[in-house]
């Protein structure tokens, strides 16, 4: 680690000001950023911790029925407190990393980082969630811009994520054996006006929607509806843990399983 300064603001305004300083970077739960600092892969002069800002923490249901999660809310809190309102999301959060990661890591940090194998991006994209920042609202479809890339501007802070609640939903993650991030993860959400299928872990372009499956499932929400479909391996990740063919195959299998789990 290189030496750095740390600010611990208690209000969003103070955080925004602090982030305006030279070489400042937001710190959520530190579960991605701190390991990167330890390996000296990043060298911010100043970290601005967001986890002391009460307004960024907690879960509630808005008047329009959407589930609102403060950006600095830990995975463990989502696992516990979203269980009744959005069980599929709570289940996703409950299977991120280990207890230490879940108690520190935050939804905002996960979305800002947009690791191509992370779990939350699939939920956000499949649920048509809205990402709120200190300056604007960004629709999920406009937010993810490829591996580790998002629509966030320099210094922009995610404040809240709003999830419309689907009628049925499930996330199925096939764990990469070492990291246990998603080798492939599929989130299926069924709304009154259609089904959304978001896939993480698989594509070189990061999280994406499998629109062919969405169309098939919107007509017929059963695993059989995707049995005959296939995903083009072109553009899928190939690494130690799986070839593009394997990942493409898993997308179909896991989508079927997610549909079965959602309907159960």
């Amino acid at each position, binding site marked *: 680690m290189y030496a750095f300064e740390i600010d611990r603001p208690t209000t969003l305004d103070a955080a925004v000001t602090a982030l305006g300083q030279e070489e400042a970077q937001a710190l959520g739960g530190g579960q991605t950023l701190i390991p990167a600092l330890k390996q000296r892969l990043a060298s911010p002069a100043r970290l601005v911790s967001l986890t002391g800002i009460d307004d960024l923490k907690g879960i509630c249901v808005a008047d329009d029925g959407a589930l609102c999660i403060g950006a600095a809310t830990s995975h463990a809190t989502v696992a516990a407190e979203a269980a009744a309102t959005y069980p599929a999301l709570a289940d996703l959060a409950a299977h991120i990393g280990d207890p230490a990661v879940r108690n520190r890591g935050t939804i905002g940090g996960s979305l800002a980082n947009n690791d191509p194998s992370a779990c939350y991006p699939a939920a956000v994209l499949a649920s048509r969630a809205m990402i709120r920042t200190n300056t604007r609202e960004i629709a999920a479809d406009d937010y993810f811009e490829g591996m580790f890339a998002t629509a966030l501007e320099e210094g922009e802070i995610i404040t809240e994520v709003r999830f419309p609640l689907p009628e049925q939903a499930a996330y199925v993650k096939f764990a990469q054996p070492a990291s246990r991030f998603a*080798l492939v993860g599929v989130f299926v959400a069924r709304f009154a006006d259609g089904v959304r299928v978001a896939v993480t872990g698989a594509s070189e372009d990061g999280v994406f929607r499998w629109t062919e499956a969405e169309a098939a499932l919107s007509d017929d929400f059963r695993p059989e509806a995707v049995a005959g479909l296939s995903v083009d391996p072109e553009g899928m990740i190939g690494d130690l*843990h*799986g070839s593009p063919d394997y990942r493409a195959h898993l997308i179909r299998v896991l989508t079927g399983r997610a549909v079965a789990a959602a309907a159960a």
Partner: protein
Amino acid sequence: MPKDHGIGASSKRREDKRFLTGKGRYTDDINLPGQAHAWFVRSQVAHGRLTGVDTSAAEAMPGVLRVFTGADFEGVGGLPCGWLVTDRFGQPMQEPGHPVLARGKVRHVGDPVAVVVAETAEQARDAAEAVEVEIDELPAVLDMKAALDPDAPLVHDELKNNLCYDWGFVEENRAAVNAAFETAAHVTTLDLVNQRLVPNAMEPRVALGDFNPATEDSTLYTTSQNPHVIRLLMGAFVLGIPEHKLRVVAPDVGGGFGSKIFHYAEEAFCTFAAKQLRRPVKWTCTRSEAFISDAHGRDHVTRIELALDAEGRFQALRTETHANMGAYLSTFAPSIPTWLHGTLMAGNYKTPLIYVNVKAVFTNTVPVDAYRGAGRPEATFQLERVIDKAAREMGIDPVELRRRNFITEFPYATPVAVEYDTGDYNATLDKLLEIADVAGFEARLADSKSRGMLRGLGLNCYIEACGIAPSQLVGQLGARAGLYESATVRVNATGGLVVMTGSHSHGQGHETTFAQVVADMIGIGEDMVEIVHGDTANTPMGMGTYGSRSLAVGGSAMVRATNKIIAKAKKIAAHLMEAAPEDIELKDGKFSVAGTDKSVAWGDVTLAAYVPHNYPLEELEPGLEETAFYDPNNFTYPAGAYACEVEVDPETGKVTVCSFAAADDFGNIVNPMIVSGQVHGGIAQGIGQALLEAASYDDYGQLLSGSYMDYAMPRADDVPFYRVDHSCATPCTHNPLGVKGCGEAGAIGSPPAVVNAVVDALQRAGHTGVTHIDMPLTPARVWAAMQG
């Protein structure tokens, strides 16, 4: 009735109290006044010519005391290799130099090029980034077969080629073996890879060197399995320090699995730099650094062929293995694919003719050396896989095929130069079938099918050679060290004992087990016995712990020393009771005169030894302290049978280990709980190798699985509850405790059971083309195998 103390009792591990309460004292816990910190600058490329190392910027950085490079080690020895293998043409192996810091060339990612020593570790690390290393990159030599191509770049320019040796065993049998293959009714051939593994002990390596200018004594605190061996190798071959001026301390050590046997550059560096700088110098390895600097394990590419007659009797066995040495010869590297591998190729079977060929190859990768099992897992895996394949090809039940070929009479001299003293392979196999409930397999198979899962059962036998090793024999085979063990038993005046052993415990529980043995021999409480190990200053010269040798060899030395104590104590007791020494009996800590009611307590005798007022001073020296060395006259041969049941998800290829059973013959057992624990840990490592772990390099020699993000270690939910049994004991015939050793068995016996089970599951599901899958059997590989 299980015993509650002494030999055979599951005494609680006394060392765990300090380990579990944070009171252990590991090398990194030791900090000396004035200590400076070292940070190694390592090569980031696999192969290249080192054209310049500019340290000037680094030297100017805050806190920097000095920056060392290869040039500082002119006139200092290289890291020695402890074993000379002679090739099949009678020539010595090619043995390249192994400098402490690279000179002229870098030969693997992680090869140390320079070291910064500074006031703090952070300062050293900061300055290390300012060291400018100029390297002309050369093509990396990675694939072993390509490395032997005449046009391949040379890892070591001074060698003829990249071949360390071409070893044949037993060379005289070669023609006869080949002839047997010509006439065999059936030949089964299998090509396989025993993949490279990273040992991953929980505690990374640490070295702390210290020098006292007033006495000119050097001290090295290090994470070692064998402090005396390090003292000998580093003192005599690298730094030129005689033993009486060099102390090596290996305090609590958090696991080794072989990787902490070897003498490493960092140890020599810290000892050397402490003397140069007149300050203690400490180095603590990071986990990332461990991946590229701890010696790796395995890495064999093998073709094995088994010739059988029409009834399935083994006629001959032939293997050809390429064994990766990495970039340099680590301490015992040449011996692993040869004498610890070739000699085990008979397994539990009476194959009359065996020929083993091993080509050891230099590549631009981290050096490879012993890792839990060391050679024996590689032997067992290929043998037990080819037997399973032969059984399937010939339509013979795999259990029956094994039984048909079992060695049943002992002692048995194998065609690969070892003599098994005892064993009962049918007994352990019978026990295995019982504890694994093989009879109930069909019902479990039906249940799996009903859930859409494939199920398979795999089993195998294994044998290993432990209790390493008879010194004269290994000397003939090229070992440059003896492999005896030592113990000093010191009895205090009030009856308590301290046993100083040359063995070293780094997780095995010696402090408990060894105390049980000595306490049992005398008939006193285990809490009367303290075990001391790990410091060359207060233990007799011993060879340390590896090769499941501690109880078989170290324990035997301890028994001998204790017998000397008892013999002397009896003479003292005889004097006190005015009886003849021959009439004295020792039982439950009391000396009595046979046939009388006269007795004296253990404590009376020990007190007399140190307060010799009433004592036979004319015949006997006062005091009660004895040392013994023990050199075994044979290896020990633990053996057993393992079974694994798996479920395979036909859609994803994911393998779940449903159950694992192990029936082992370890001879006599001192502490059944500790033995079970050793087997559990070994099986976890074996399952790790079978399903999860692999050190993978890319085409440039970068380690792709260089962190836990990509190197998959087994976790609690990857392994099932184990059923282990060690009741089928045939005691070792040639050591006093009748023990065989249990530390490596689990890791040796388990990988073939897992792979056999997965292949069985796929075969039962109609994937008849799948006769083998290379480890690790990741979901992706199993799925690909099912795609054909």
